[in-house]
């Protein structure tokens, strides 16, 4: 699905993002303060309807970058532009409008959903917080959203703990879609899920993007997952982007040493076994296909 045409217009850009944390040494209030630069001059460009993956190991600054872009953290320096307007220092009503355009899906399904709230309260919360009315009433709105993300609408009164990991993550996605955003920041959104459920949620995200045109800023440490969902990939290491490129180009011929090392380190099922398995699967399908037509 690599875009051949020059590509849809840029939705979200960030220039020279820097984020510093002051880490207090041990020893109470007067200890010397060490400054940790988690993000060190990062540029990000997200195009409409596309997925940009920020990939890297722990401590690479990918999550911090995502939080800076989603305005969950204050920028030390650098700018964030959304549809051409500078949103870096936005506040008040303007920030609210930005919030309705950019939403976040988090890693741990159970930690990102309030255990005391029902699905309905969770999903309608963004609208309530932005002072917008819930179109068509909370119950109907929730049911339609749940159907869109593949959940049983009758469960709208349940609590998060009554759902499986995959289902809870779908609630998180439904909540993100509630305000009709243009950009969804997925912060390790499938990392906590089992392989089978992970595949279902990746399919859901891809279908929603295809059908409803969302752009994703997808944060992940698993390169294989990135391979399945990203259009463009930015590889981050110790607070900097070491390489950016289209997915196929980057996976096929990585330019930067770190990217190469990262790709080499990912465990793989032996290609020859994989090829053999797929060949057998295809022969089985053609055999089933023949049997059905006769």
């Amino acid at each position, binding site marked *: 699905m690599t875009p051949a045409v020059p590509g849809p217009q840029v939705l979200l850009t960030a220039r020279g993002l820097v984020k510093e944390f002051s880490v207090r040494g041990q020893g109470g209030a007067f200890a010397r303060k060490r400054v940790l630069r988690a993000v060190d001059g990062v540029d990000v460009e997200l195009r409409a309807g596309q997925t940009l993956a920020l990939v890297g190991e722990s401590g690479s600054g990918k999550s911090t970058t995502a939080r800076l872009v989603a305005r969950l953290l204050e920028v030390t320096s650098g700018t964030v532009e959304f549809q051409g307007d500078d949103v870096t220092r936005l506040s008040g009503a303007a920030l609210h409008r930005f919030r309705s355009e950019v939403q976040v899906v988090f890693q741990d399904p159970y930690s990102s959903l309030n255990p005391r709230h029902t699905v309905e309260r969770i999903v309608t919360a963004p609208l309530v917080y932005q002072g917008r009315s819930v179109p068509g009433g909370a119950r109907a709105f929730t049911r339609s959203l749940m159907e869109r993300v593949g959940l049983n609408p009758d469960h709208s009164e349940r609590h998060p703990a009554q759902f499986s990991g995959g289902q809870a993550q779908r609630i998180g996605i439904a909540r993100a879609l509630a305000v009709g955003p243009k950009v969804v920041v997925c912060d390790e959104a499938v990392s906590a899920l*089992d*392989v*089978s459920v*992970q*595949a279902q949620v*990746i399919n859901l995200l891809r279908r929603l993007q295809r059908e409803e045109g969302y752009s994703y800023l997808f944060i992940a440490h698993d390169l294989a997952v990135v*391979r399945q969902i990203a259009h463009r990939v930015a590889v981050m290491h110790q607070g900097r982007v070491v390489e950016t490129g289209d997915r196929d180009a980057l996976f096929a011929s990585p330019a930067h040493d770190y990217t190469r090392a990262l790709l080499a380190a990912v*465990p793989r*099922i032996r290609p020859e076994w994989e090829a053999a398995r797929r060949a057998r699967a295809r022969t089985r399908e053609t055999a089933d296909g023949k049997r059905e037509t006769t």
Partner: protein
Amino acid sequence: MTAIGKTPPLLEVEELNVTFPTPQGAVDVVRDLGFTLEPGGSLGIVGESGSGKSMTSLAIMGLLPPRATMSGRVRLAGRELSGLTDRQLRRVRGDRIAMVFQDPLSSLNPYYTVGTQIEEAYRAHRQRVTRRQARRVAVEAMERVHIADAARRVDHYPHQFSGGMRQRVMIAMALCTEPDLLIADEPTTALDVTVQAQILRLLTEVRQETGAGLLLITHDLAVVSEMTEEVLVMRAGACVERASAERLFSDPRHPYTRALLDAVPRLDDEVGELRTVHGRGPSPAAGATEGDER
């Protein structure tokens, strides 16, 4: 049963059942599990959260929580373990069978230096060992797992080591008694991919050096394909398929194995709509939420 004259298998597990009392009644976490492992051989037990793979390893070591009940037979090199008293089993644990756990941070006692904790494993199975001798063994074990400056770092505390380094300490601790069987329960799940690669290489190197057998528990099919000669797929507490790695990955027979392999996101190419796993979820209590027991 063991054929006459032939050396007995390193590990034989027959009709292993583990049940856990829960408020909603007893749940069979492991159901009629059986497998053997030849001396120096390696078996990967793979399965999703709640499949009972970790419980299997704990059952073999006799480390099940007090509430759990276990039945079936476990034999190590022809010697029946399940009938032993705790005192007798203790002489085997940590000496003939050693274990490495998933979370390096919480698996080491924060109040003692790593040296003390390695020495403790050694002295538990060797009589009349002077403190100096034990310390020398600890330093050697740390050097064997490539921990730089081991002589100095032996007196450091666990919180002064990175995740990868702590896992090396765990492996050193397991090695110092030259066990016949090494059980690794998700040893690299909590680690970054580059660090994981190093730890997996270390495990392979250690096995070649000591000839110990390896029982690797993981949810990651790619890791299993690189690490073990035999693979056993578990679902809802039972074995759905067991075969050599080559046979299982190139010609999976059981539908669950096939669906699982289809769901694994791969690095090498675009996968169409990821086929998802149908029917009952991976965990024994079908409706139960997928806990993160992975």
